[in-house]
């Protein structure tokens, strides 16, 4: 069952009482990406992998992957933005230390054309 079927609008008789939500963690199914008017874009060639964007993101929309650091220890790396959840608030773009230096951009911010 896809999300569209899962969240097909129900009749009032078919709802649990009082607006109780019976499934834990189903906020992850909620597509907040449609709220976006601007979107962050990763430029991995400029990224210093400080994970500040991941730390600041209010939607947990920065996608990480497992890898190995220069010291040989396992660590996480930024790969992409999850546009299903990204609202386009731009916090990641503003907090990116590479962007702050102003020479090159590790996270661009562009109009999200629908």
């Amino acid at each position, binding site marked *: 069952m896809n999300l569209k079927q899962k969240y097909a*609008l129900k009749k*009032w008789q078919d*709802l*649990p*009482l*009082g*607006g*109780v*939500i*019976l499934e834990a963690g189903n906020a992850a199914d909620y597509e907040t990406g449609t709220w976006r008017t601007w979107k962050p874009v990763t430029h991995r060639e400029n990224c210093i992998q400080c994970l500040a964007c991941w730390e600041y993101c209010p939607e947990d929309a920065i996608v990480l992957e497992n890898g190995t650091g220069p010291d040989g220890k396992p660590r996480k790396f930024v790969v992409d933005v999850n546009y299903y959840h990204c609202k386009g608030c731009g916090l990641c773009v503003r907090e990116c230390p590479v962007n702050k230096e102003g020479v090159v951009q590790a996270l661009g911010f562009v109009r999200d054309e629908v």
Partner: protein
Amino acid sequence: MKHVAGKPKILPITGAGAMAQAMRQINPDVVAAFPITPSTQIVEDFSQFVADGKVDTEFVTVESEHSAMSACIGASAAGGRVMTATSSAGMAYMWELLYVAASMRQPVLMSLVNRALTGPINIHCDHSDSMGARDSGWLQIYSENNQEAYDNLVMAARIAEHDDVRLPIMICQDGFIISHSIQTMQIEDDAAVKAFVGAHKPYHPILDTKNPVTWGALDLQDYYIEHKRGQEQGMKNALRVIEEVSVDFAKKFGRKYNLFETYRIEDAEIVMVAIGSAAGEIKEVIDELRTKGEKVGLLKIRSFRPFPYAQIAKALSHAQIITVLDRSASFGAHGPLFVEITTSVYNYCDNRPLLLSHTYGLGGRELSMQMIEHVFAESRICLDKGEVNGRQGMWLNVRGD
């Protein structure tokens, strides 16, 4: 007289004291309350029961009524049977949460002692507190005397917690007139009350950690109105449930209640409609007037929310004039009871009686037997003339009118 276990106890007790006794017998999981006149004795007595170990209740001494109702909602969502008591400004301070309790379908049980709302500040009885909350989604049951208030509270859990209802309930009694008056009444046996009330059945409780749920989430254009529609259905179902529980109560304890009470209305030309303690005096006046041949009767409201429109219309289908006494004012409009009675009569039956609205008793102003007689006499004049013009919407016992 020595009390025999298993037998009811006849004793003189105040209305507020009787409510505390009912709470002790119900033995709720949580009580969160902030004492306020005239409901103070309920909380006072009950906290003594807690201190004496007579109940297992977790008693939350909150810093305000806003917190009291918040704690009640939280405890109810957690899965407990929850009770509180308040009056007037105390309930007004709960206002926001009254709606939350109802829309979250948490069957919180409240013992409300009706008192005027400020201002000017006043501590005595009228119905402006609960009447203002009539749209909040709470069931509202009114009581004429101590016995009724106690009986209604004993029935409250069964009604509010019923699967088809799941709504909070306020059991109302008149401040001071009932809450502070000692009447001889029957307190049922503890075990019998416990058996009647039964165990609390939680609905998706938060404390069921194996099945985590979210209560009170944001609800927008796509679902809010469906949830409200469900809430309305709970109220509609409550009409049936109140009757069922009342029938069961009568079987068990012998005292019969209905959605409303009628007194000598079968052949009555003039029917007075009232709520609460005033009904006692009105019945007395009716008996007196009946000896003089005047065909008068009373319809006393028990369930105001839900309002039994069709049933009341049927009961009033032979009345020629209906005189409604409101103990609260809706400024710029007729009183809330008058509006409901008018809706009832004009939409649910073919009878087209005269309807006369009166406001009385605000801030505890007394309603004397002479005053009731006067209202019946006024009603008779209107009926003879065939119109109520000039008398509509009068305030009783007000200097200057």
